[in-house]
């Protein structure tokens, strides 16, 4: 009976998948959702490719999965990947529907599965991956994920249920590095990047989980990520197998446990992308792929446009960057990066998530948990916020010390480009939520049009 239900779910899902593809809806989870409805254990019985990799953790999942997929594809492999961030059951089922034929035989060499952390105790044992990469843990949406300790418990359980998987862990992340005790563990880290960490209002690792004492860092690259230790009980970061160093100017050097070093290209110099890239390198090296081959492959890999996109227009750097709403740590990382960036700039922010249902009112707890203080910087000339919660952002920016004359907050996202002044700008940044990628691109085009039509130039 189980087998019959599985075959019905497979064929039903394949039928819907073909239908959706034929009607141009390739990036749609509904065929996967149909397969899961027809048989809730679809993920258990659908054949996985010879190599299955799961990428999880709070931040960086989409970037790492996308880069891994590009890497394997460039090597001539057939890769199944949920590339639009569809990291729940339906998205995984959709991915795997596309990785088998109607006889449930693999049609792909590799599955790169971006996975939500909360569902991992149930999904991970069904996916049976050979490799699991946990990039980091941090505060995320309080509504779904509560706090990092809650997510840690879920991922820990997931790893206990997949003891054969090799787990790639961030040795610099005290919130995730101690999981996977029963697995083969491979650690990555990044040496002191020498970046002024600044004072954050967030601290997810202020109390030692072992003794309750006050934690300390030999260095801290961002947020709670760095060489941590507890002066009271001696708890410390695990020794990394792969450690990034000398990051900058488009490259990062990775030193391995045997002392060998290789320089790798970086798709982006931002601190979180340095970590994402070193995580990817550790994942690929753990599979036995030669360092030189990885370095060559990374030369032609870019970040997904849903995360970052840029163009130089009349000398003005125009850039979109994802800045997750409801996720204080992701937003704070972006704000910090903008605060450290010495270029003269204006910023457009469209980070509210609820904008379609007029009856819905979005929580702004996250904006009072995010480091808006980093935006109080002389190099930032103007901050233009568009969206339903514009009055809350205005108050938060004022409380962060941003001068009133630099702030423009309006309800309409689409009107934000009109408020740019281009008063000596080297750059214009457009920060958008993961749910407003297309709106971010539309604003990008509107800003570009203004620069060209008004003949704005970098001074």
């Amino acid at each position: 009976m189980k087998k019959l239900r599985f075959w019905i779910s497979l064929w039903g899902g394949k039928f819907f998948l073909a239908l959706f593809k034929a009607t141009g809806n390739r990036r749609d989870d509904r065929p996967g959702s149909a397969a899961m409805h027809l048989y809730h254990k679809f993920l258990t019985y659908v054949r996985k490719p010879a190599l299955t990799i799961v990428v999880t953790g709070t931040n960086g999942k989409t970037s790492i999965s996308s880069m891994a997929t590009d890497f394997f594809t460039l090597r001539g492999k057939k890769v199944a990947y949920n590339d639009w961030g569809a990291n729940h059951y339906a998205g995984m089922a959709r991915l795997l529907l596309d990785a088998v034929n109607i006889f449930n035989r693999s049609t792909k060499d590799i599955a790169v599965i971006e996975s939500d952390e909360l569902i991992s105790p149930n999904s991970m044992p069904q996916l049976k991956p050979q490799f699991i990469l946990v990039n980091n843990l941090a505060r995320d949406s309080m509504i779904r994920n509560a706090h990092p300790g809650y997510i840690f418990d879920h991922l820990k359980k997931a790893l206990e249920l997949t003891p054969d998987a090799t787990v790639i862990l961030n040795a610099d992340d005290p919130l995730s590095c101690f999981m996977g005790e029963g697995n083969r563990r491979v650690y990555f880290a990044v040496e002191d990047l020498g970046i002024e960490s600044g004072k954050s209002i967030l601290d997810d690792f202020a109390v030692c989980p072992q003794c309750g004492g006050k934690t300390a860092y030999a260095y801290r690259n961002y947020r709670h990520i760095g060489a941590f230790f507890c002066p009271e009980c001696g708890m410390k970061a695990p020794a990394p197998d792969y450690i990034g160093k000398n990051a900058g100017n488009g490259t990062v050097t990775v030193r391995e446990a045997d002392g060998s070093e290789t320089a790798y290209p970086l798709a982006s110099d931002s601190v979180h992308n340095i970590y994402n890239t070193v995580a990817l390198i550790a994942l690929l090296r753990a599979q036995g792929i030669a360092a030189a081959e990885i370095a060559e492959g990374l030369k032609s890999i870019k970040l997904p446009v849903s995360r970052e996109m840029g163009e130089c227009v009349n000398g003005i750097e125009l850039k979109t960057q994802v800045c997750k709403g409801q996720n204080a740590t992701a937003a704070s990382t972006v704000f910090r990066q903008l605060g450290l960036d010495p270029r003269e700039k204006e910023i457009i922010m469209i980070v509210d998530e609820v904008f379609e249902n007029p009856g819905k009112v979005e929580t702004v707890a996250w904006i009072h948990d995010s480091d808006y203080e980093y935006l109080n910087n002389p190099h930032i000339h103007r901050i233009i916020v568009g969206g339903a919660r514009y009055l809350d952002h205005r108050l938060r920016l004022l409380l962060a010390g941003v001068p009133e004359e630099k702030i423009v907050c309006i309800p309409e996202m689409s009107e934000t480009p009109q408020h740019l002044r281009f008063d000596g700008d080297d750059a214009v940044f457009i920060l958008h939520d993961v749910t407003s990628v297309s709106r971010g691109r539309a604003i990008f085009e509107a800003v570009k049009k203004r620069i060209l039509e008004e003949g704005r130039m970098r001074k």
Partner: protein
Amino acid sequence: MKGEFLFPEMSNLYGDPANFRYLEACLPDAEWIRTNNRSTPRFATEQIDFLYLGSMPEDKQVLAAERLRPYTDTLRRQIEAGTVILATGNACELFGEYIADADKKTPMLGLYPFHAERNLEKRINCHLLGSFEDIKIVGYKSQFSVLRGEFPGEFIRADGGMGNAPGDRSEGFRDRNFFGTYLLGPLLVLNPLFTKYLLRLLKQEDRLAFEKEALEAYECRLKQLEAPNAVFPMGEHG
């Protein structure tokens, strides 16, 4: 005027510390104290006018209760003396008898005969529209627990969203100037009229930092939550 934030290193979730920071911004000349869980709380040794405790991870609730237990009588005396105390989010659970989670009961401070019932498999998320005296209160709740039992008094009457438990319109509790609530995040930033009320209780001038902007944001949210089509349960994206 002295304000003390208890255990800010662990009582720091969901934007709750913004409550303390906002009072600091409103009263920059007051003394604002942050007490680590390894230190003796200042309220135990000197007169403190305002005490604050915010949301924390579940394991830290146990640690916080452990640290406060030696000062339970002092806390009781402070409450009776009218000290202004605010506990937001799951910090309010610390003042009941225990937290029940499946078949396990974790003792709390036992100042009041209520308890929390926790289910880590079910997170409850909602907006809240309510009233405290003649002040309309707006806010959010995001919690694994509900409160049941006897409360010293009502803090907020919920007109929209959940009270202390499903079907209960009473939200949080009040005993003299002690306000306990499951509302979390920047409660005082979101509710300038209640913040002014607290400042008056503290015998301070009731002038807020960025008062005009805070009132505009409050009026906007209030209007949205009072609209007939307002949605109180929260979805994945708030």
